[in-house]
């Protein structure tokens, strides 16, 4: 279907504006096959909207974006999507099994039992994230970390070659952050899947990121971490002095709001 050379994502002058305010203006970018792209930016910079455009849920204001060479469309089986964390009603009669199952066949109409292959595939996805153990419990009563691993399994169960992740580390403690990053980067490295990873903190993904797309105040910059997350680039983007410090292998950005500490942390994620 797609020639090897077709990039998973190609944006050409893509602009998204709400009421004359451009979230990002003439974004031009080619994401390579197997690349791990982190998307950073303050709240309201249009990070989630970028994912929604790629999923076919949000039309562009102008310009073009192509996913595997075609305009974005809903229901593209090659895409996996981890939506932003959202609290789940503890009384909701939905188990991890059901949640991951939706990722595989939730879109199919009609009734009928699952095939053995489908069931095995769901079990494999649960195993991949280590969620099999609690897959029978109501999802609303699991910890944030357990729920998030189920979301990862839901996104991976169909075997996507392009994985879109919206703040998958939000509301997770360090232990679970590491686990989720490991699972996603594993999918990236071993299966050659392309990953677009929206985050407000670059540090948990610093070792696995290929390039960073920074969205801020309608402007954008893309490139390797040490080119984009510099005092110079950030100061230009924000139009104000920004400092970048390196501390024990972590990046600390001073003077720029990358949207951190906004939703931290309604829900602690205790160890299982």
């Amino acid at each position, binding site marked *: 279907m797609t020639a090897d050379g077709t990039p998973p994502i190609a944006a050409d002058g893509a602009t998204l504006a709400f009421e004359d305010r451009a979230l990002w203006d003439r974004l031009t970018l080619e994401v390579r096959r197997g690349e791990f792209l982190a998307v950073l930016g303050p709240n309201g910079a249009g990070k989630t909207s970028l994912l929604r455009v790629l999923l076919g849920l949000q039309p562009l204001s102008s310009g073009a974006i192509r996913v595997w060479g075609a305009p974005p469309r*809903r229901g593209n089986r090659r895409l996996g999507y981890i939506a932003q964390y959202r609290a789940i009603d503890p009384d909701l*009669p939905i188990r991890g099994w*059901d949640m991951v199952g939706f990722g595989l066949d939730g*879109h199919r109409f009609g*009734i009928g039992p699952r095939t053995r292959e489908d069931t095995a595939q769901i079990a494999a996805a649960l195993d991949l994230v280590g969620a099999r153990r609690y897959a*029978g419990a*109501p999802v609303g009563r699991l910890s944030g970390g357990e729920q998030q691993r189920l979301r990862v399994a839901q996104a991976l169960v169909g075997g996507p070659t392009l994985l879109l992740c919206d703040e998958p580390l939000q509301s997770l403690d360090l232990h679970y952050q590491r686990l989720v990053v490991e699972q996603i980067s594993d999918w990236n490295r071993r299966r050659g899947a392309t990953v677009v990873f929206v985050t407000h903190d670059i540090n948990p993904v610093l070792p696995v990121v290929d390039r960073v797309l920074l969205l801020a105040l309608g402007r954008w910059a893309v490139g390797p971490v040490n080119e984009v997350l510099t005092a110079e680039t950030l100061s230009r983007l924000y139009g104000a002095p920004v400092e970048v410090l390196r501390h024990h292998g972590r990046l600390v950005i001073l003077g720029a709001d990358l949207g951190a500490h906004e939703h931290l942390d309604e829900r602690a994620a205790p160890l299982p």
Partner: protein
Amino acid sequence: MNSLWHYDFVHHALLAGAITAVVAGTIGPFVTLRNMSFAVHGLAEVGFTGAAGAIVLGFSPEAGLLGACFLAAAAFGALGVRLRERDVAIGSVLAFAIGLGVLFLSLYTRYATEAFTILFGSVLAVSRDDVIRSAAVGGAALAALAVIARPLRFASIDPEVAEARGVPVRHLSTIFLLVLALAVSITIQVVGVLLILTLVITPAGAAQRLTLHPGRIILYSVLIALGATLGGIVCAVYTSLPPSFFVSALSLGAYLGARWLSPIQRRDGRAEALRPDVVRTERNGGRGA
């Protein structure tokens, strides 16, 4: 007393009751999943107005009931109305619908009887034709639900991800409202407008306390609805007291019993989840209750 069982009206009541219980019990888990009890009540109230209007105009109340429910569902769907308890505008319009129904009935001479019948149910007065109509309407509702059940559940739980996966979330919501209108219109004939939730919500609520397996939730919900409806009719036949009372009493009893027995009540359900055979039981139809 036994001779009562030879009467047609008892057979009709039991048949209509059974059909209604199966339909209401099946649709109930979807209603609770989508938090739509307010919508059920709303549709029933508009159905009352439709039935009352039909009587005044000389049509059959059943046709008016079904027509009004269906039109209201289509309107709610088209407007994308969110039927939530908080919504003052919707609540006010629905209250007015009931007021309008009362006005219609007051224009009709047998006002009190008809109002009572529609509001509180009249399962012991259903005819052979009513039973056949219930079966046809109920069958249509179940067939439609079978087609949309899986994507509907997905869309109910995670509309954003479902939409990204290609589920037509908005259309499903409208289709489900129409299916709900069918179910509500036949349920009203058994328990009435005011007791509609006793068959549409309560058995589903009880079933969810007993199991988390999606198929079993529906099965238990249907069984509880059947028990409450048929049991209620039998009690009514023996005592000459209103069937709606017994149906709602049995239904509530089942709910309280389920809450009391609930294995899911345990703080996090992990005791069951820890069982190593989760996968095997899933394939065989689910985790034990």
